[in-house]
């Protein structure tokens, strides 16, 4: 790493330190935590876009799948619901799988109009069959204590395991999507992935039996102790005695630092793997394909397969980050997944940081999340000062101040455009070492 790469990180950590000193340490840490998660997401996109030139606008969907993984892994199972509708759901799942297999088989055997007709017929039959089995089962499941459960629940496993599961979920989805959509050219792939991610979220929002839909799953298990309980512990008391800060602040700082530690480990592992991959023969080949697909294809590289692998890997990383985020939130709220925040913002991070460079993507994520969160107070402050001359009761001033939170969009957009214009290769550009 050279100076150009170290400097942004140094500045960022100074900013975090400044936040800690001027605002509060627990705030600084919670911003840092989200920065770390964002960095993992950005690395996922960087794998796909920076290494291979694949445009994945489905970040939101993979993030949501990661969140779903936390629910299905870590929350307690609901035996009554399984009893009421478990078999029905499983049967419906079986029908769908059977239909897909049948459709693929038919697709291979027949051609032309026969193929279209048969596959359509299979799809319709599967739809009818699956819904007739599914609807009563779903109704039964959702009737089980709807205000608290009303879903099948999870496996009751340790929450950290769900991070891996989140990666697997996202990878599975990415495999299916990639298999059918990777042949598309860049902007179509972008729009297709965007559409698929909307469909994924629509399903999560509306299928209550799966993860309670809009009713949200709250109180997911945490890998860290609860602050209130921690304050009762003896070791904590002695620690608090020894340190010159209040026990409340100490407990929040400790818990957040615990999360920070976990996230740093994950980020470090992924970063290390990504760096290894980048400088491996595989990574060089990947970039060769990105820079000249036709030539690479002519050289006998199976471009499609390479793309599929990198698409699945990148999406898995995003899934892991999604699971981490849901774990940090302690709840799964499918209604909150929105492309502006969960897809486009991540892209902004990668572009600003420097696509093709893992350090760049990481530091981009750090800066963008920091700006995204801090733009609100700073924006309000600036507008407040800038409109003082209007007089305290000016309706214009009131209006502007009350709309100040919207400034974060403007700030983000302007920063993105400025970087694209004046430093198009990002804060830490891709290194041209071959």
């Amino acid at each position: 790493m050279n100076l150009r790469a170290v400097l942004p990180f140094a500045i960022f950590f100074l900013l975090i330190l400044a936040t800690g000193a001027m605002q509060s340490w627990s705030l600084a840490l919670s911003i840092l935590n989200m920065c770390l998660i964002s960095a993992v997401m950005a690395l996922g996109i960087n794998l796909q876009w920076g290494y291979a030139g694949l445009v994945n606008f489905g970040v939101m969907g993979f993030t949501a799948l990661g969140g779903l993984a936390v629910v299905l892994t870590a929350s307690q199972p609901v035996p009554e619901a399984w009893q009421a509708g478990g078999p029905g759901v499983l049967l419906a799942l079986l029908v769908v799988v059977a239909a897909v297999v049948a459709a693929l088989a038919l697709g291979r055997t027949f051609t032309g109009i026969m193929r279209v007709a048969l596959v359509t017929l299979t799809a319709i039959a599967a739809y009818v069959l699956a819904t007739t089995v599914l609807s009563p089962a779903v109704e039964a499941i959702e009737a089980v204590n709807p205000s608290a459960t009303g879903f099948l629940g999870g496996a009751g496993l340790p929450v950290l395991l769900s991070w891996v599961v989140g990666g697997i979920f996202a990878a599975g989805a990415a495999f299916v999507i990639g298999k059918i959509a990777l042949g598309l050219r860049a902007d179509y792939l972008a729009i297709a992935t965007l559409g698929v991610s909307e469909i994924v979220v629509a399903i999560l929002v509306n299928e209550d039996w799966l993860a309670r839909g809009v009713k949200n799953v709250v109180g997911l298990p945490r890998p860290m102790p609860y602050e209130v309980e921690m304050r009762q512990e003896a070791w904590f008391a002695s620690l608090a005695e020894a340190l010159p800060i209040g026990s409340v602040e100490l407990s929040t700082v400790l818990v957040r630092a615990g999360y920070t530690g976990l996230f740093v480990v994950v980020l470090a592992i992924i970063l290390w793997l990504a760096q290894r991959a980048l400088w491996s023969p595989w990574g060089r080949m990947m970039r060769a394909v990105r820079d000249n697909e036709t030539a690479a294809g002519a050289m006998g590289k199976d471009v499609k397969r390479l793309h599929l692998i990198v698409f699945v890997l990148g999406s898995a990383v995003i899934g892991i980050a999604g699971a981490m985020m849901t774990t940090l939130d302690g709840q799964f709220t499918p209604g909150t997944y929105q492309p502006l925040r969960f897809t486009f913002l991540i892209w902004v991070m990668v572009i600003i940081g420097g696509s093709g460079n893992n350090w760049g993507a990481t530091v981009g994520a750090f800066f963008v999340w920091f700006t995204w969160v801090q733009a609100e107070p700073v924006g309000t402050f600036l507008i407040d000062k800038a409109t003082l001359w209007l007089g305290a009761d000016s309706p214009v001033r009131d209006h502007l101040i009350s709309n100040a939170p919207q400034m974060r969009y403007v700030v983000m957009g302007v920063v993105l455009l400025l970087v694209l214009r004046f430093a198009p290769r990002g804060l830490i550009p891709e290194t041209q070492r071959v």
Partner: protein
Amino acid sequence: MKKSFAAIVSVAALLAATPGFAAEVKIGVLLGFTGPLESLAPAIASGAELAIAEVSESGEFLDGSTVTPVRGDSTCVDAGAATTAAERLITSDGVAAIVGAMCSGATTAVLQNAALPNGTVMISPSATSPALSTVEDNGQFFRVAPSDARQGEVLADILEEHGITEAALTYTNNDYGKGLADSIASAFEKKGGTITINASHEDGKGDYSAEVAALASAGGEVLIVAGYLDQGGKGIVQAALDSGAFDTFILPDGMVGELLIEAIGPDLDGSYGIYPGSDSSGAEIFAKMAADNGFNPGVYSPEAYDAAALLLLAMQKAGSTDPAVFKGEVVSVANEPGEKILPGELAKALKILKDGGDVDYVGASAVELIGPGESAGNFREIEIQDGKIQTVKYR
């Protein structure tokens, strides 16, 4: 630890109790200023800030302390950003308590990740999800909005009394709407009624004709709209009236308000519904105060006023802004015994409390806290006649 903690508390208590010492107390107003419900947030914030200004200007609060609001954006869609905003309010701006958050999802996130760890008291004006009744809150979370379960029963009673046997039901697709719709449906069906369709609608969309078409096809004597009056709920009512699908609407709490009547017009006559309230004139007074201050009392705006007022009155009663101390007083100022307090009478209430008396805060939304610190659910049954909201009775 106990030593230092006790020291901090005693210093705080000492400062607060020192006669003539006037400090600045900050109250966080944490609402979804951006995101899908961004259009509701400003009016709610104005409600809370109205109460804060009233207390601050009275000069009676904790020996003349001033109170200032600090806004934070909980975004409604982003638990991470909501937590960070709350964290900032608590640990950086140093707010004594928070009015918020707005959406149930953001509220649970903020409660779990910021308020509980930091020991901050939160009163949500608008989070109604039943899940919040059972959430671990260490006595720090209250809400002025009633839980949806009770409302469903009241609505079912009213439907029965009107002789309705079949009704179509649509709800806004979030935890509030879904929870309310489920509770209405189960209560109504227990009474032998039929819900012909229980379909969601998304807020923040422009077009509701497909939803209305499905509702119309399912049929029913009335349409129950468990939504927001300036969001999808309004769109549904408008589209249903325009297409002649339904003439009569049943309006739960999120739908009752002058804004709806203004937007829809005389076609709404004959529709009926409920909203939190008791036999008091609080809501009217608040509406007038809001108008004088230049904002429309939208959904949950009265509740926000009450949330802020309750926080400040509890501090006054406890004589402290330390959450560990005043969190125990929130219920006592909200409920009997004591003098009834309406909007605009906060100065009076502060004075009574200062003199050691008791108050029973009624406020703009007829606050009565029960059980796990949530609104008891006194409802006012209303009917819309001649473009006016007429109160039929209280339940």
